């Protein structure tokens, strides 16, 4: 039973990262109509940024949680201004190709500099150790990641679905020209949205740094799984992304316990089944 609870916990942790990453993808896709292939690289940049802050500048985990999303998000905004903004009139696939190329460049540069082996990142002292729950041992840091990512996901949902800024955003998703005519600066909103999505990926990267090692390729394979998560959930709904992310993490954890050989592929198999039954995704809308 111990092992089962352990795998469930790992599943929840992975699910937390799936949820945060697919949420960022969904936010970006909603307004920009671009699938951000650089998302995995930006998640990796978040982890590296935290590592830099700690080892080069002596800035700890808590400040990194604040600084990293802003720094990487600003980098994202710069990319949006200088490159992505030139592609909006073209076929959406060009956005995918451009961000794929950017991901190759970023990952290549980091691998040149740091090699392929991982760099360790200490768990902050406040969260080291764990709690014995009787039926299992719960490391404090892992509990924190689950709680914190839930807070992040739910506040993103709140901002987009319940605030005025969010309503502008949703309106611009439906009809950017009309929103612009009402005097709202849509291009700036697009830049900020891309920055926000990238910032979410970077935040996930900081939270992942103490759990997985900080590695130039940590986002490369992850992003493909997150794509499958996005196809399963459908990008129509923010809450759908969150639920699908956590749910699939748990399913993957359970698979690791009951049938480990399939744990790498179970999410892709679920994707195929969902495509057969409900092609628009569990929470998606057919256009």
């Amino acid at each position, binding site marked *: 039973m111990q092992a089962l609870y352990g795998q469930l916990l790992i599943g929840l942790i992975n699910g937390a990262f799936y949820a945060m990453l697919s949420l960022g993808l969904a936010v970006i896709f909603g307004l920009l109509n671009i699938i951000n292939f650089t998302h995995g690289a930006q998640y990796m940049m978040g982890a590296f940024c935290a590592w830099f802050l700690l080892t080069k500048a002596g800035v700890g985990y808590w400040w990194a949680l604040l600084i990293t999303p802003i720094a990487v998000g600003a980098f994202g905004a710069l990319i949006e201004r200088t490159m992505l903004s030139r592609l909006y009139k073209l076929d959406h696939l060009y956005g995918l190709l451009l961000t794929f*190329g950017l991901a190759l460049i970023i990952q290549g540069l980091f691998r040149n500099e740091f090699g392929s082996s991982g760099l360790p990142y200490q768990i902050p002292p406040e969260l080291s150790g764990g709690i014995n729950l009787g039926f299992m041992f719960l490391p404090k840091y892992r509990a924190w990641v689950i709680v914190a990512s839930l807070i992040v996901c739910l506040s993103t949902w709140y901002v987009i679905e319940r605030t005025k800024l969010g309503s502008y955003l949703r309106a611009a998703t439906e009809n950017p020209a009309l929103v612009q005519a009402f005097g709202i600066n849509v291009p700036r909103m697009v830049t900020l949205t891309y920055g926000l999505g990238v910032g979410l990926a970077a935040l996930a990267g900081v939270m992942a740094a103490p759990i997985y090692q900080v590695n130039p390729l940590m986002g490369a394979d992850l992003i493909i799984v997150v794509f499958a998560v996005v196809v399963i959930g459908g990008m129509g709904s923010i809450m759908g992304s969150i639920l699908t992310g956590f749910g699939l993490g748990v399913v993957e954890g359970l698979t690791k316990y009951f049938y480990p050989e399939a744990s790498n592929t179970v999410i892709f198999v679920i994707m195929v089944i969902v495509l057969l039954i409900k092609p628009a995704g569990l929470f998606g809308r057919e256009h």
Partner: protein
Amino acid sequence: MATATGTAVGAPREDTRRILVATGIMAALLAVAPFVGIYPVFLMKALCFALFACAFNLLLGFGGLLSFGHAMFLGTAGYVSAYAAKGWGLPPEFAILLGTAASALLGMVVGALAIRRQGIYFAMITLAIAQMMYFFFLQTPFTHGEDGIQSVPRGRLFGFIDLSSTMTIYYVVLAIFLAAFLFIYRVIHSPFGQVLKAIRENEPRAISLGYDADRYKLLAFVLSATLAGLAGAVKAIVFQLASLTDVHWSMSGEVVLMVLLGGMGTIFGPVVGAFVIIALENYLAPFGQWVTIITGVIFVVCVLAFRRGIVGELSAWWKSRGG
């Protein structure tokens, strides 16, 4: 992807003749290339990738469908034909046929799934299924995991052509490539190719004219998968190796790059793109990660400034001169 393509499908007879002449020149150049000091092994690698890229271009350039998982067809055919030649001791022609057939079958299943969604979702679905195939080949015993299937025998083609000689196998590869190239050209200029183009340009209109768009898209996908499989099968026999590199997602990205660089929707673009990229990789191999970085830079430059690709730009320039 319609906006960037410059070539008219179903061009008048004048163009047809020009393309056939150009194909003849290409064939002649490739036939003499080993005699002017170009390493035949390099040429064979480039030809396999050129065939792979042409197959991919059939789907992207003429069907408007961006598959981000085409490596699975290259790799599956490679594994199947390598195993058939080594494990079962089949002659090379049967090994290649078997590998190609395996990819065709896979293409039918994946295509039927992927065409249920469009645009960006299509790309993500093919990528995800290809990743699933990657893990399958990583875990299943017959592929020997990280080692791959090594020292695959080349054997004798049709029982009397000994493929162990580099020059002999080079001309066999060239013949296969040219046959497939002409086949693709024929498909593009057939009524089927016309309908495919109509669907790319405006799917609802094509449907309203009575065409079953899904059937056409599936057939294009299967054709593309089959030819990509042919490339993979030949590659496995020539290099006597089937490995995980050929099913990895970076291979799927590479073929996109070749087609993008050479010119999407042009006949010769993928060939040019494949030769440029393979040459680049050859020269940059000692510099490690710089290959990835330069690949990425080419992607970015092509998308931002150079969407017609080499052949597309050249033919636009030619046309602007009134050629």
